């Protein structure tokens, strides 16, 4: 029997290289574009998800009743003991009104025009001190430090103080001495590019040094009301405003009025946020918690809040695959037509093969192997094209992004920064499925012409 290599060789001799190249390029380009676009979407999804899970609580537990600090601490400790958690953050709620009209001094310090906002319930998300956060802030500050000299003469001491503050090494005296360093800077969500400004502090989460604020000013805030203090608020504004979230503006306002003693209301805790070691397990963990806590609390997971964003990715994927499937079917029809032409053109050769003792199966195999071989090689051609495009995109379009490689959390914002996400490598399963689909299309396309070839009457073919 002829080996597969010989059958493929015969098929290429019969059908010719011209058709093979045409089909190869058609499939390779389609696969290349599919893989590239899919990689791009996957990259976008990855970055979006990373950003979401980096900037949102993975699981939020909102209690139906108010908890005092002791209860909240106890609950946090209990949850942390369960494992699978990086840390928990207790939500401190200030229930009251920040009367911004009562203090003219606010105007001296406020940057922006949203000072008239009032929040009936303002939530502070207490910053959780972690090594990662310290490291992040240190890097930001170092970067800031390098740039700051231009506009802030003699500020090295200030920077050192802030740096020390954020890594919680500073004492109260050092902090007090240098807190007038900078006004808070707030950015609207649409201006992420502004975040590149080295004079801005930001994070992917509205971290607020509430612990510090409470420690230093919370209870004694009124006593310090006359002291002019500025906070450096580290936050980003991509969080939607909701009853669980506060923008940097309202955070700043509230702090101001807490400190200055003009805000009126009560503090309490009513929710706890969980940050998981594996955010993808949020749903299953939430399910367990729902069962345990019952009606005492409402539990939500990060993906609940971003259903539309995630659905958009899915919709894009569906659209992409639909278009590519359409192109695939078109290529299949092209392949089928070309093989049909080949069968007609080479009917004499097929008849000779049949007369020499070739079974119909061999004739079918010749065309099927031809098609599958081209499909297989073209798939890898597509992989190379996709890799080239991805590399090119990463190299040219995202070149600037490499400047921020040192900022782990800044990486999360690169979708917005560059407008083009990093291309992600497709998984083995997904690429295998695409390969199988390509081979199936090739097989189906070749089957009909192959059967037609096998059914050629050798007598007619030899005439």
């Amino acid at each position, binding site marked *: 029997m002829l080996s597969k290599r010989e059958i493929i060789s015969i098929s290429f001799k019969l059908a010719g290289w011209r058709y093979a190249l045409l089909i190869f390029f058609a499939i390779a380009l389609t696969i290349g574009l599919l893989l590239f676009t899919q990689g791009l979407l996957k990259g976008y999804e990855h970055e979006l998800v990373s950003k979401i899970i980096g900037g949102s609580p993975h699981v939020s537990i909102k209690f139906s009743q108010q908890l005092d600090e002791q209860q909240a601490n106890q609950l946090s400790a209990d949850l942390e003991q369960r494992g699978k958690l990086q840390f928990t953050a207790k939500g401190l709620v200030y229930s009251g009104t920040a009367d911004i009209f009562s203090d003219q001094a606010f105007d001296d310090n406020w940057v922006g025009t949203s000072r008239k906002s009032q929040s009936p319930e303002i939530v502070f998300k207490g910053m959780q001190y972690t090594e990662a956060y310290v490291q992040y802030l240190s890097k930001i500050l170092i970067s800031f430090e390098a740039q700051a000299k231009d506009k802030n003469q003699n500020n090295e001491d200030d920077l050192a103080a802030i740096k020390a503050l954020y890594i919680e090494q500073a004492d109260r005296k050092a902090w007090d001495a240098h807190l007038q360093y900078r006004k808070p800077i707030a950015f609207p969500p649409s201006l992420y590019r502004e975040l590149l400004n080295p004079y801005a502090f930001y994070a992917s989460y509205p971290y607020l040094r509430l612990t510090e604020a409470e420690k230093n000013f919370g209870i004694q805030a009124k006593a310090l009301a006359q002291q002019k203090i500025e906070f450096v608020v580290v936050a980003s504004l991509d969080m939607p405003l909701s009853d669980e979230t506060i923008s940097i503006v309202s955070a700043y306002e509230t702090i101001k009025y807490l400190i200055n003693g003009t805000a009126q209301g009560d503090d309490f805790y009513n929710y706890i946020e969980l940050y998981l070691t594996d955010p993808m397990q949020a749903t299953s963990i939430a399910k367990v918690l729902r069962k345990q806590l019952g009606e005492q609390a409402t539990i939500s997971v990060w993906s609940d809040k971003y259903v539309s964003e995630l659905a958009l990715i899915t919709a894009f994927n569906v659209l992409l695959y639909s278009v590519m499937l359409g192109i695939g079917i078109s290529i299949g029809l092209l392949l089928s037509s070309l093989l049909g032409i080949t069968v007609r053109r080479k009917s*004499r050769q097929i008849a000779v093969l049949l007369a020499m003792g070739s079974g119909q199966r061999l004739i079918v195999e010749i065309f099927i192997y031809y098609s599958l071989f081209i499909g297989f090689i073209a798939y890898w051609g597509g992989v190379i094209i996709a890799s080239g495009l991805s590399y090119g995109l990463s190299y040219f379009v995202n070149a600037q992004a490499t400047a921020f490689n040192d900022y782990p959390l800044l990486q999360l914002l690169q979708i917005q920064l560059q407008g083009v996400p990093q291309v992600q490598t497709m998984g083995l399963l997904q690429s295998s499925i695409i390969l199988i689909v390509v081979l199936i299309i090739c097989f189906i396309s070749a089957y009909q012409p192959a059967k037609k070839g096998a059914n050629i009457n050798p007598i007619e073919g030899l005439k």
Partner: protein
Amino acid sequence: MQEIISIKKLNKGFLQATGERLEILRNLDFVVKENSFVSIIGHSGSGKSTLLHMLGLLDEPCSVDEWKLCGSKIEQMSLAERTRFRGEKLGFIFQFHQLLPEFTALQNVMLPMRIMGVSQTAAKKRAMELLSKVFSTEEMDNKVYARREAQLSGGQCQRVAIARALANDPPLIFADEPTGSLDPESAVKVMEILKALPAEGKAVVMITHQMELAAEADHIYALLAGQLVDKTSDIKQRLSGTPKKSKERHCPICQDGILLDEIEYQKGVLIDQCPQCNGVWLDKGELEMVSINVDAFCDEVENIAFELRNTK
């Protein structure tokens, strides 16, 4: 010697576009012994190629009483078995060589062996042996075997086709006008190769138009009105210049072709057919009839035969 082909009462016809049935082969009997060289002559459309296709298992008879090749009963074989049988036991030489132009001469000869499962090395070795038989030393030195059809002459192509037909060492070779497209010199070379095959234990059945080539065979048959008639002695005598014993008559239709001896188509009904114009001639003394339509003629013969039987 054993019979390598044994066919009894084979019938084959086609349905024409007009809806009428055209009978090509009628109750045909054919026997070929081992190691013999048989040629079949006949006019165009007499059914020579149809018979060869049937013998080569490329076509199916409408009906047959016995159909044995190389001792095997063909009618009992499945399609796959016939395909395998064709590859192993039968060799084909076509008028227009029918080499695969995409392959070299060597690959063309190797291909039937590879299809039948002969290893690459053995197939190459045998192909080279066969090619060295059909090509001269000079041609082999010039590596003619590495050329493709377009780079070979017609005679060389036909010799490659012979080598290809012999690739699987089949005991039965069918040659359909193997010299039809060749110049006389190439035709002689091809015929020399074919004539040598019976000595190598192969039976050759050759179809040709040319009586001179047909005369090279051990047995010569003419296909007349769908039946094979042994014309060995007649043609050999004619070509050797020996005066013909029987009367030699010109075709009454075309006035050009010389009619062959009559055959007894039906009992008491002798017919003759012109190899030149395909006209059929019935000689029955006072009843004389000619027709260029064999089918219409045969229907008419049925009536005449009936009349004759009644008369007697």
